[in-house]
């Protein structure tokens, strides 16, 4: 029996999340967070942790809610809808890595703090080359007597300014292929770690450069097998792609809503502007892109947990499509607003700019299209 839709529980989660975030994460909070250092709206995150969201996909035996990637996508869609700031997705990626490949000691050390919202974490994988494939990981991790020494810089690290823990991809063996890629847990307070904020136009995100000045970590910092981390890392990137796709879906829905609402109140030429066919068709074209895109997000999240052989393909499709759809939607939404949509005062630009960052995060659309062509053996 095909059942391609949310369950009752999932729909309840969706409703609850929407209500909660409408109340707790208004645009004013997004703007205030943009001004504050660190970029973590602590109050909001405390409540999110109370609701169990930080450990949403963590088994109950480890203190989580024991839900899956689809539920995570549902929550991420709602977070995207309100353009929520803060390290939710980043932390989820590191939690997923810990659950998949972490040692019992590593889990003990970090899971409770991450699940309770006392600490945040993020994945640091990109470098100057901006490549999302194994060749992008060039930073060397050299064996020392007790562990490893890492030196170099990781760029475009999402939520770096507010992170307490970094999951760093580095090379334990020279080369450009998948072999030799390793993952390390590097705490913020480790000697030699420095975070340099990288300001982007997106006011809702905090991106940073992670500078590792000969940082020494113990052997126990290695997550999974030495030199064997590309497959789990690639899977994390898929999860990131799904997360951003879900966020984009929610954001696009909200931007469309704002534009349609505005068109029903604004008058020009003695008519509501929403009665002009040009605006109606613009809105309809957005609907025709956004509505079906929801299925891609759902399927990618479902496949991530239940269809391992299709997971990468589904994630890549969702990310490629939503990257385009979100960008086109906010562009049209601004046009439907006219001048007012172009001001700082109006909230719409928060989504407009977030869409630009979402488009490139975890691989820009062309990267994913090429990846799909490779997966499908064109």
């Amino acid at each position, binding site marked *: 029996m*095909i059942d391609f839709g949310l369950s009752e529980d999932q729909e309840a989660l969706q409703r609850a999340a929407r209500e909660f975030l409408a109340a707790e994460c208004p645009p004013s909070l997004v703007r205030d967070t943009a001004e504050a250092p660190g970029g973590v709206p602590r109050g909001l995150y405390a409540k999110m942790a109370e609701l169990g969201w930080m450990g949403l996909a963590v088994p109950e035996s480890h203190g989580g809610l024991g839900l899956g990637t689809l539920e995570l996508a549902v929550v991420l869609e709602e977070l995207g809808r309100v353009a929520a700031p803060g390290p939710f997705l980043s932390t989820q990626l590191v939690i997923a890595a810990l659950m998949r490949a972490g040692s019992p000691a590593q889990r003990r050390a970090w899971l409770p703090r991450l699940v309770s919202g006392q600490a945040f974490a993020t994945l640091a994988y990109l470098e100057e080359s901006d490549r999302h494939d194994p060749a992008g990981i060039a930073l060397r991790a050299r064996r020392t007597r007790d562990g490893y020494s890492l030196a170099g810089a990781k760029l475009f690290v999402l939520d770096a300014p507010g992170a307490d823990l970094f999951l760093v991809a580095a090379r334990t063996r020279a080369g450009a292929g998948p072999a030799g890629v390793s993952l390390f847990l590097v705490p913020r307070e480790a000697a030699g770690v420095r975070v340099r904020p990288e300001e982007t136009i997106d006011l809702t995100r905090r991106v940073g450069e992670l500078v590792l000045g000969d940082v020494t970590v113990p052997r126990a910092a290695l997550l999974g097998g030495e030199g064997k981390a590309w497959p789990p890392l690639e899977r994390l990137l898929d999860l990131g792609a799904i997360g951003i796709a879900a966020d984009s879906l929610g954001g696009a829905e909200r931007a469309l809503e704002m534009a349609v609402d505005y068109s029903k109140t604004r008058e020009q030429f003695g008519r509501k502007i929403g009665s002009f066919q040009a605006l*109606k068709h613009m809105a309809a074209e957005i609907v025709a892109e956004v509505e079906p895109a929801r299925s891609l997000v759902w399927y990618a999240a479902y496949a991530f947990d239940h269809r391992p052989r299709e997971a990468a393909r589904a994630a890549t499709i969702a990310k490629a499509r939503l990257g385009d759809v979100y960008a086109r939607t906010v562009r049209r939404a601004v046009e439907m607003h006219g001048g007012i949509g172009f001001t700082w005062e109006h909230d719409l630009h928060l989504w407009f700019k977030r869409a630009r960052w979402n488009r490139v995060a975890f691989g820009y659309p062309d990267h994913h299209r090429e990846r799909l062509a490779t997966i499908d053996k064109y």
Partner: protein
Amino acid sequence: MDLSYTPEERAFQHEVRTWLKRNMPKRDPAERPLDFHEPERVARAKVWQRKLFEAGYVAMGWPREYGGRGADVMRQTIVNEEMVRARAPGLIGMMGIQMVGPTLITHGTEEQRRRHLPKILTAEDIWCQGYSEPGSGSDLASLRTRAEMRGDEFVVNGQKVWTSNAQFADWIFCLVRTDPEAPKHRGISYLLIDMKTPGITVRPLVQMTGDAGFNEVFFEDVRVPRANVVGGLNDGWTIANATLFHERNMLGSTTRTQQVFQGLLRLARTQGRGGRLACADPAVRRRLADLAIRVETMKLEAYRQLTDTLRGRPHGISASVSKLVTTELNHDLAEAALDILGSYGPLARGNRRARDGGAWPLDFMFTLGLIIGGGTSQIQKNIIAERGLAMPRELRA
């Protein structure tokens, strides 16, 4: 969410797949689905539908008393999926199965059901649709074909146009004006007319493709029994809207789209372009990937709509979205093929150098027809904005 089949469904799937492998007629690769212009092909297509029906695979969801199986939607979905997979030819009686049949089941009299439903399934009766008129395209409700009551009969006069398959159809379901005084949406009835009735003339309307799938149908003092009205007198508009919904679903189906994309991919893998295979060109690869993503989107969206059906939830404007998106997508697929083909692109059907029998340029035109027919893209956008988003209605007469 669950996309896996139950053991029973899996067994059924296996059964259908095996049956198709054994029974499917050979297909000319240049033969376009749902395009029946040669009498011989019509005959073959009827045989094929009959065979499928006898195997129990046509309109499985219909009640048993009318020839259906009373099966759940999943079974029919599995059959549809397997037919795509096998590249099985389409059903010639689609108009009856997808449009008249469901309408009669919901709105018809017991007599109408017993008379028509079984023959729809067996392809004994082929149906065509008499909605559009020369002056009434997008503005369907302005139609002027009149049916005047005289005694126990209607006398029908007027003209229909864009009537697919009228050249061999046995019956036509029509919208006719039964009350010229009423506001335009209120004076319309839904009428079933036997195509053999005296006074009906069918004139082929050749498409730009050169095919004669469309027709004009002229009615001159055509006498139709009163019992052939479906639903109440002057209730035709409501009933037609329910049927239009089915049409959108049909046209918008992703079935054909997936097949076409597979054909495009084969083409890209074999066609040279500027000294290498087309699929080795990064720009072509990304364009194909983009199309693949759109195809995948509509495939999953069809599952979502199916789920809404299974759960008894309203579809809202999803039929309009599907119609809009899928027809544009099909046209874009054909255009991509033409671009890959370069100078080979415009070669016509019958040319020995034409790839895939010259199907691509025809498909390019045919799909443009789909964008226009069954409610143009513009009409779908109006519906999405006005019904889906509650944006203020256009000023219309």
